[in-house]
């Protein structure tokens, strides 16, 4: 699998992402600066977390208009896998690759803690190494993770199996109490219709080593290598 991680001014999770990918790939992915207008031949493009452009205007809004994003949109249309985590998820919605928007957390507070997630849907690229309904643990660290879309869009996401991850408790039950940020229908991550683009607020790259205290994220990266090699 050939992977590239795009770096924007203000990205800060790209090194964690490179480490997680390297662990599963056995070789390092390429780091790509956002001013690039052409992308190399890649199987996976990653938009990492952070605070691109200081979250000016709206989180991810400026990055979504970076030169490289035209290429990302083109590659996604060609079927290349695209993963956006946290600020990367915000960029994907701003770029129109995923529906909806990420709004200020319901509590108005920045949230940094581990959350439980239930694997929803049946996506062969991103969640092939998990089983449907499995409960996993990833950290979240965000101020704008409150997923919003109109009811029609939400119904469509659920109907087409495009919801990938939902906030839940240790038993896999979702509720307003357990939902950390107020996201509509407890959504933590969604796929595009074709299933080759995933945006998610939690950080799989920060639960891949024993030292992290949890390795639930490892299966996501191992699954990507298996699906895209």
């Amino acid at each position: 699998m050939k992977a590239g991680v795009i770096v924007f001014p203000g990205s800060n999770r790209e090194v964690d992402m490179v480490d997680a990918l390297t662990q599963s790939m056995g070789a390092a992915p390429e780091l790509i600066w956002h001013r690039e207008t052409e992308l190399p031949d890649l199987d996976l493009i990653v938009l990492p977390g952070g605070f691109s452009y200081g979250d000016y205007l709206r989180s991810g809004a400026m990055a979504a208009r970076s030169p490289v994003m035209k290429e990302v949109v083109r590659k996604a249309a060609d079927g290349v896998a695209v993963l956006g985590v946290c600020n990367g998820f915000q960029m994907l919605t701003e770029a129109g690759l995923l529906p909806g928007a990420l709004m200020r957390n319901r509590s108005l507070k920045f949230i940094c803690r581990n959350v439980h997630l239930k694997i929803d849907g049946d996506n062969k690229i991103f969640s092939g190494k998990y089983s449907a309904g499995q409960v996993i643990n990833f950290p979240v660290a965000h101020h704008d993770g409150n997923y919003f879309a109109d009811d029609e869009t939400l119904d469509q996401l659920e109907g087409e199996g495009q919801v990938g991850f939902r906030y839940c408790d240790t038993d896999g039950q979702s509720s307003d109490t357990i939902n950390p940020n107020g996201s509509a229908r407890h959504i933590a991550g969604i796929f595009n219709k074709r299933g080759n683009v995933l945006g998610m607020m939690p950080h799989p790259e920060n639960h891949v080593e024993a030292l992290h205290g949890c390795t639930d994220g490892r299966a996501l990266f191992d699954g990507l290598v298996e699906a895209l090699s």
Partner: protein
Amino acid sequence: MKAIVYVTLKNGVLDPQGKAIEHALDGLGFDGVGEVRQGKVIELELDTDDQDAARAQVGDMCEKLLANTVIEDYSIDFAD
């Protein structure tokens, strides 16, 4: 001329910041305040005096960058 763009959350989109302001005003003893909605004002210096052309251009800017029309509405005013 100067264009002034007002960006506000659409009706039906929950505005947690507006809610917090509403509660804070209540806490300060300001009675009779209904729903509070928070938005943004963006001022643009434009190199034209043609208001129709400017309106079309700024509308395009709103659609492409200044507003996220999934969650936000915008309106445009002009000043000299």
